[in-house]
């Protein structure tokens, strides 16, 4: 999987309330959630984000609630991938389980600014900041998580094991 898009830069400890505020959690419709994606961090995000764009953030992205609505909203808004220095653990699990590509890379997070054009190769973990002409290598995705992705997410892997 390869992506190419514009970066949206966010700071540290972006919590799930800012990714999708609880006032919109009375639905789980991805299209509805996407309308309010990142609303309390940047109210203009949902109307300006383009398919293929990339969120780049500092440490502990997705901390707080277990709401899967957070990665669902990000994916439904068209974001191709989230790059952060680190992810909160439930957000990390949720992203792999429901199929939002995420990568951990400190250097890419530090040197990327909003609007930079970013290329990502999920299979190699290579991140290129085209605007700045810099290349980075993300932390490798653990083999178990790669298997989950290859199986099409957690539910598909369960189905393939014949558990249903």
């Amino acid at each position, binding site marked *: 999987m390869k992506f190419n898009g514009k970066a949206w830069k966010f700071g540290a400890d972006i*919590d799930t309330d800012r990714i999708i505020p609880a006032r919109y959690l009375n639905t789980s419709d991805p299209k509805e959630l996407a309308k309010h994606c990142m609303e309390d961090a940047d109210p203009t995000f949902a109307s300006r984000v383009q398919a293929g764009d990339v969120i780049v953030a500092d440490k*502990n992205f997705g901390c707080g609630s*277990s709401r899967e609505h957070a990665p669902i909203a990000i994916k439904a808004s068209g974001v191709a991938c989230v790059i952060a220095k680190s992810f909160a653990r*439930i957000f990390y699990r949720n992203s792999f389980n429901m199929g939002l590509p995420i990568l951990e890379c400190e250097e890419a997070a530090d040197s990327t600014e909003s609007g930079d054009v970013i290329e990502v190769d999920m299979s190699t973990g290579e991140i290129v900041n085209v605007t700045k002409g810099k290349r980075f290598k993300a932390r490798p995705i653990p083999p178990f998580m790669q298997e989950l992705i290859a199986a099409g997410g957690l539910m598909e892997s369960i189905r393939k094991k014949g558990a*249903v």
Partner: protein
Amino acid sequence: MKPMTITEKILARHAGAKEVTPGELINAKVDIALGNDITAPIAISEFKRIGAKKVFNRNKVVLVPDHFTPNKDIKSAEQCKVLREFAREQKLTHYYEGGEVGVEHALLPERGVVVPGDLVIGADSHTCTYGALGAFSTGVGSTDLAAAMITGELWFKVPESMKFVFNGRLRKWVSGKDLILHIIGEIGVDGALYRAMEFTGRAIDNLSMDSRLSMCNMAIEAGAKSGIIAPDAATKAYVTKRAERPFKFYASDEDAVYSEIREYDCSQIEPKVACPHLPENTKNVSEVKNISIDQVVIGSCTNGRLEDLEIAAKILRGKKIAKYLRLIIIPATPFIYNEAMKKGWFDIFLKAGAIISPPTCGPCLGGHMGILAAGERALATTNRNFVGRMGDVKSEVYLANPAVAAATAIKGRIAHPDEVTK
């Protein structure tokens, strides 16, 4: 056998292994899989989408519609309806609504649904609360819940453990809430990321079950996978009359390996306040006394239990809350609600000018029953003070224990309980 922590022992047992090592990926059996009115609808839709017909065990899948209940609007009513229909169709033994529902993490321990030695997963981040009973308990997402509902198992990465030793005696007005806020203030909101927090020491031995529950409840606010306290005589007294199933006490081996050990002298810890907009922004209450407050909330899975309401009643007895301030008190379960009423605390709260809400998560996550306007400031006994958490994006939330909350309601500004008691 290699020495193990309590967390490693519980995980090994549920994975059918003699031992496990931090970093290892395991598949483990779950004793309880929990969902609420926000997270379960997605899990139920995934369950149906892949063609599952029956949950793995109707006694072990628990649904608690507590977040936006009593239904705050039509969409919330639709979500709750999904849970009700699924519970009826699957004949779930643990489904609660109406006059039986309480805030999930107060309700499940109280009803003996979770017991020591359990492996519990919940599609709610505060599922870590049950570590107070000596269970391994962790928050997951809706897809994880769907997988566990079908197979009765889930994958886990065995976490490293951090040990927090609390020596000495607690000062007056200091509770489990202050101990956990103190830790988070030191290590930060990702200070325990991916790890298990184990709380121990003389002060923990002497801590009430309600205070232990509120402490483990906030392990997630340090980024932890779980929080845990080894069960003891107090745990036994609490669970013996409640437990629905046989339980098992585990303890860490003396030479178990920890990624970090931190020690605290409790005589140095004052009541704490976490300032906006992260739980790590903690200060001593005496440092923030000049801040005016519009709304005080006493409740939630962190501090809506009997001990919390008791201390609030003690402070509010014969007093009035400040003019122009709203005090909202939310007993976390129907049992707590009824006990508080029988003990006469409702009289005290109502005479003081408080609102008493039915059990609900309500305002804690900005759902309903006490939303803030732009520029308003709340002090709450809840667990998160993120941007916009309790209402408008320009509102603010301060976190504290129930004694500080009650004193604050009387003064109309952040106050130390000593200021309003003799």
